[in-house]
């Protein structure tokens, strides 16, 4: 099986955003344009994460899922604020393939079992957001790393797997957005303790970090955001004259101050993973082959 590279798109309202250190969330532009760019350039799946957990309110993000699913033919996972079976059904009906659940699952673990029974395990991704404590253990957090739970991330991972989660999305909050690399110990401890796939998330600053979390962290899939968004943003700006007006152009200026994160492509990441001896699905450019129909 190929190692999966999954661009993560943080959504706020109609926009793709990305936190940069303590600068807060920056608007990068329309998520569906990034999504399509990643699809056309070899992404294996996509993850939409609603940063304000309002996906199932009236802000039109279900429409965003629908628009994305009409032109992106790879699996789409949607998370952020999923609280009920009805929320899951709404996301799936809009065109999502899987949902990612954190807070609601920690509050009531049986929710995982109910969701897996109703929609199938392969639809249910349990998101574990962990912070490393001074004693070296990891604690699971809720609400984008704002709510401590007192629950051991490792024990919670095992329990979530037993309850029927199909995959675990493991994010090291303390690494997220820093560009310092993944928390290899967190990823490895969970990946070796459960029999379901583990998706590592949070901290990639260069392609080697992705290779490391696969090789040393034993991740089955890797989520990347900043690593790709900068490059994609520049590509979209150069390919479309009106694009720069959509996104926050301060962003490019900021990027130069944020030199910890490399600007790279999915292809470069896959080349690195392949170099380390892992199977990847190499991307193909529809523009080059000219064989693929896009509307």
């Amino acid at each position: 099986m190929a190692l999966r590279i999954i661009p993560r798109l943080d959504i706020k309202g109609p926009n793709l955003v990305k936190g940069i250190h303590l600068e807060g969330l920056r608007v990068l532009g329309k998520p569906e344009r990034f999504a399509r760019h990643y699809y056309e350039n070899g992404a294996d799946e996509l993850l939409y994460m609603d940063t304000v957990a309002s996906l199932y309110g009236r802000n039109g993000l279900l429409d965003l899922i629908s628009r994305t699913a009409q032109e992106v033919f790879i699996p789409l996972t949607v998370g952020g604020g999923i609280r009920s079976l009805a929320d899951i059904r709404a996301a799936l009906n809009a065109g999502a393939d899987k949902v990612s659940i954190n807070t609601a699952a920690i509050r009531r673990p049986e929710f995982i079992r109910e969701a897996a029974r109703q929609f199938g395990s392969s639809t249910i991704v349990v998101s574990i957001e962990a912070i490393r404590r001074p004693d070296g253990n990891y604690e699971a957090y809720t609400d984008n790393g704002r709510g401590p739970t007192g629950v051991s991330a490792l024990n919670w991972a095992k329990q979530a797997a037993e309850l029927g989660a199909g995959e675990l999305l493991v994010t090291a909050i303390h690494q997220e957005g820093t560009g310092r690399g993944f928390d290899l110990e967190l990823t490895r401890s969970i990946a070796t303790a459960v029999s379901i796939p583990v998706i590592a998330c949070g901290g990639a600053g260069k392609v080697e970090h992705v290779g490391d979390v696969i090789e040393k962290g034993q991740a089955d899939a890797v989520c990347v955001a900043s690593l790709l968004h900068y490059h994609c943003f520049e590509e979209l700006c150069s390919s479309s004259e009106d694009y720069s007006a959509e996104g926050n152009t301060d962003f490019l200026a900021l990027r130069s101050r944020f030199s910890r994160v490399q600007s790279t492509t999915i292809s470069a990441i896959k080349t690195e993973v392949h170099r380390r001896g892992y199977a990847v699905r190499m991307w193909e450019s529809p523009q080059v082959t000219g064989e693929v129909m896009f509307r």
Partner: protein
Amino acid sequence: MTTVAIVDYGLGNLFSIRNACENVALPTIVTSDRSRILDANGLILPGVGAFGDAMASLQERGLVDVIREFAASGRPLLGICLGMQLLMSESYEFGHHTGLNLIHGKVVHLPSRRSNGSDIKVPKVGWSSISPVSDALSRRSFAGTFLEPINDGEYMYFVHSYHCVPVDQSTVVATSMHGDYPFACAVQKERVYGCQFHPEKSGPRGLKIYQSFAAAVAQASPHGHVLGARCAA
């Protein structure tokens, strides 16, 4: 106009299948209505979930005989994921269940260990390469099958815990690997096709399989779509 009916029996992501059909300009209807299914030029049988539930759901809606009748008419039928498994004679998922029996074979659990004893993760989730089966002359190619536009070794997206074991090897079009275990991941018998993977989630290459299916539907419609003949029967 050729139309493909996507069987709606309460299971599966019909939305993404419909999007993929639209992308290759194949008009669809999503339906569980007997006459609309039997009037269609092609049929897609989706499915996510458990085999027994799916067969029970098809039976409740009176669709088992309808699908069999459709297949017997010679028009193209594509089963995807669980939909492929339903084409088989029987399944051992949570007990023993009878399938549509359009392709002789059974459905069994994927192994969770390699021959050397190491673990293989089940469900199998992710991208796996598919290969044609060697013919009598040891040629390996998808030529002449519904996977004709696909190259040997192309990656497709899989999500499953069970797999098909067809009795007649000539119905196996493609195999894939689960750890070190090879299994049939695409089958074809005349115009009955099945893919264990999700072509609608397998990127541009997957869409080419929908194109191939659309071509089969267009080709078959003048012959298969004979209303009078069916009414007479």
